[in-house]
């Protein structure tokens, strides 16, 4: 009881940036964003800057002078480092990944915080409203993110907002959106996603259009919520992460509610019986994989935006960008919640962003036979499953955040015959580079478990090999003596 009260008290002290603008200011102040005053071209140049920032782990570029689009700006790579993720949560930028993860778990295990709907007059996103013939996506500084992309991408770091027509569930999801013409966007919506299910189960069979709103330039925590595979509705999840209710406002042309502090809102209808081409696009796997195809088509009815609106850009490609970082982070933590809810003695779950969120590393106390298989079945069978295809299970003595230890465990303990289990005919995505063209087209997947646990039926004294490392084989007093004398021996390395 005492612990719960303490946690609740800490939640009240959250001082996370409430808007994209507050977030940019905080990042500039800490040195995690740079203001670029010189003119930047929306045609490739802005994308190239963001890509290079991702690959170098640089500060986020805040580009204030966009060619052809006076008054608009770009903020690129908003959450492509753990430092900026910590800032978004109102934490010290130097916080470690386990600390950030613990804070995320604490907040997302708290009580949901309902959003509040505010008056249109108080909503910054209504400062400019384009309706009717004025609606034209080319009035927005939509960037060509990568040379050779199928088009200029409106939505790379955003939320597509829809509501289930029967259940009323609100969904904020990051479904990429390409500008086809001034009134039309096309996007990749996987059939297993929340929006994909709503379209195929309800709207398409009835021939009904699905109202949508795209919110760009969200607060970083709203973007985090839109990216997270959590069962909690994103408006409530955003409130839990921020420690206060998110402010919503009603759309101009449909009944959806959108984040009032977002920079840009695009409203319209997903058409049930008309499709245009989408892609190719540089994707989070580090490749252009999914083929150009006729995809879900969004017809635009209204655009609203703040004065001096900032468009957020995520440039996906080789690691690491915020798609990889944030999805790895939230997928790992959501799986940890799931496994713990089933009573499995996991010691931690981690996805390295450089796996492009394809490999889940699970640490567990190997207390009974088949525990790795149970973990894999839960992981692959859950809503999270289609987003990764490898689960590696290691014991609780292996540091899951230390790739050297994990790799050593994998290479030495995973028996080629008994430790590798392939799951066939599962759910995949069109974006998997290793998938066949046929599998990509129909979202057919395959997945694999790497069981790196010593078998429980091996005699622990005589059959299980002994790990030979400095920390594991020498007596404590010898370890301390050697460490204390390290410099005296003539070594220059730091004490460890």
């Amino acid at each position: 009881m005492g612990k719960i009260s303490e946690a609740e008290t800490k939640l009240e002290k959250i001082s996370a940036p409430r808007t994209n603008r507050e977030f940019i200011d905080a990042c500039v102040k800490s040195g995690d964003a740079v203001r670029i005053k010189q003119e930047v071209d929306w045609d490739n140049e802005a994308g190239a800057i963001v890509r290079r920032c991702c690959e170098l782990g640089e500060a986020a570029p805040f580009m204030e002078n966009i060619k052809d689009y006076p008054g608009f700006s770009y903020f690129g790579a908003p959450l492509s480092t753990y430092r900026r993720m910590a800032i978004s949560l109102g934490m010290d930028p130097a916080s470690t990944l386990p600390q950030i993860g613990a804070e995320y778990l604490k907040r997302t295990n708290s009580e949901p915080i309902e959003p509040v709907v505010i008056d249109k007059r108080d909503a910054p996103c209504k400062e400019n409203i384009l309706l009717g013939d004025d609606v034209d996506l080319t009035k927005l500084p939509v960037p060509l993110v990568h040379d050779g992309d199928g088009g200029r991408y409106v939505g790379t770091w955003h939320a597509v907002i829809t509501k289930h027509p029967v259940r009323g569930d609100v969904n904020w999801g990051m479904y990429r959106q390409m500008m086809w013409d001034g009134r039309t966007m096309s996007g990749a919506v996987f059939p297993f996603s929340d929006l994909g299910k709503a379209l195929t189960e309800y709207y398409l069979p009835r021939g009904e259009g699905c109202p949508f709103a795209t919110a760009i330039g969200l607060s970083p925590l709203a973007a985090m919520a839109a990216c997270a595979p959590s069962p909690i509705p994103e408006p409530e999840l955003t409130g839990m992460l921020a420690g206060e209710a998110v402010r919503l406002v009603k759309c101009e042309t449909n009944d959806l509610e959108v984040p009032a502090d977002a920079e840009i809102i695009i409203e319209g209808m997903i058409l049930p019986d008309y499709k245009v081409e989408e892609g190719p696009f540089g994707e989070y796997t580090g490749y252009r994989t999914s083929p150009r195809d006729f995809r879900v088509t969004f017809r635009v009815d209204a655009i609203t935006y703040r004065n001096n609106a900032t468009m957020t850009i995520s440039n996906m490609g080789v690691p690491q960008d915020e798609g990889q970082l944030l999805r790895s982070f939230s997928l790992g933590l959501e799986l940890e919640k799931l496994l713990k809810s089933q009573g499995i003695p996991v010691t931690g779950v981690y996805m390295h962003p450089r796996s492009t969120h394809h490999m889940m590393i699970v640490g567990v106390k190997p207390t009974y036979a088949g525990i790795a298989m149970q973990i894999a079945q839960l992981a692959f069978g859950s809503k999270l499953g289609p987003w990764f295809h490898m689960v590696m299970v290691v014991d609780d003595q292996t540091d899951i955040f230390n790739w050297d230890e994990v790799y050593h465990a994998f290479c030495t303990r995973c028996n080629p015959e008994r430790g590798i289990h392939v799951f066939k005919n599962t759910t995949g995505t069109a974006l998997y580079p290793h998938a066949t063209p046929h599998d990509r087209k129909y979202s057919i997947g395959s997945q694999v478990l790497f069981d790196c646990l010593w078998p429980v039926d091996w005699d622990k004294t005589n059959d299980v090999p002994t790990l030979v490392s400095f920390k594991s084989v020498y007596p404590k007093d010898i370890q301390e003596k050697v460490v204390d004398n390290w410099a005296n021996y003539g070594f220059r390395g730091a004490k460890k």
Partner: protein
Amino acid sequence: MANKWEVFVMDLGELAEGKQLELTVRTLNDGLQKYTYQRAKVEVSSKLDQFPDSLQVRLGRGQLSPQRYSIRVIETVNRLPERYR
């Protein structure tokens, strides 16, 4: 002034010469409309001086083809159902 266009194809064989084609092409003319698409009836030719406009080609994963064409846009085609316009 001649217009610049671009098209995505899986195979250059899709760009048959000597007959009318219906393609989804995007403009490469400088300006706010750059990279926006339209559906159009066109003729293409590998002879670069055959038609007034130029056409460059990208393949399935965005690779720029070295093969260039000239193109004549005969008319645009609006396939969007009337009820959505």
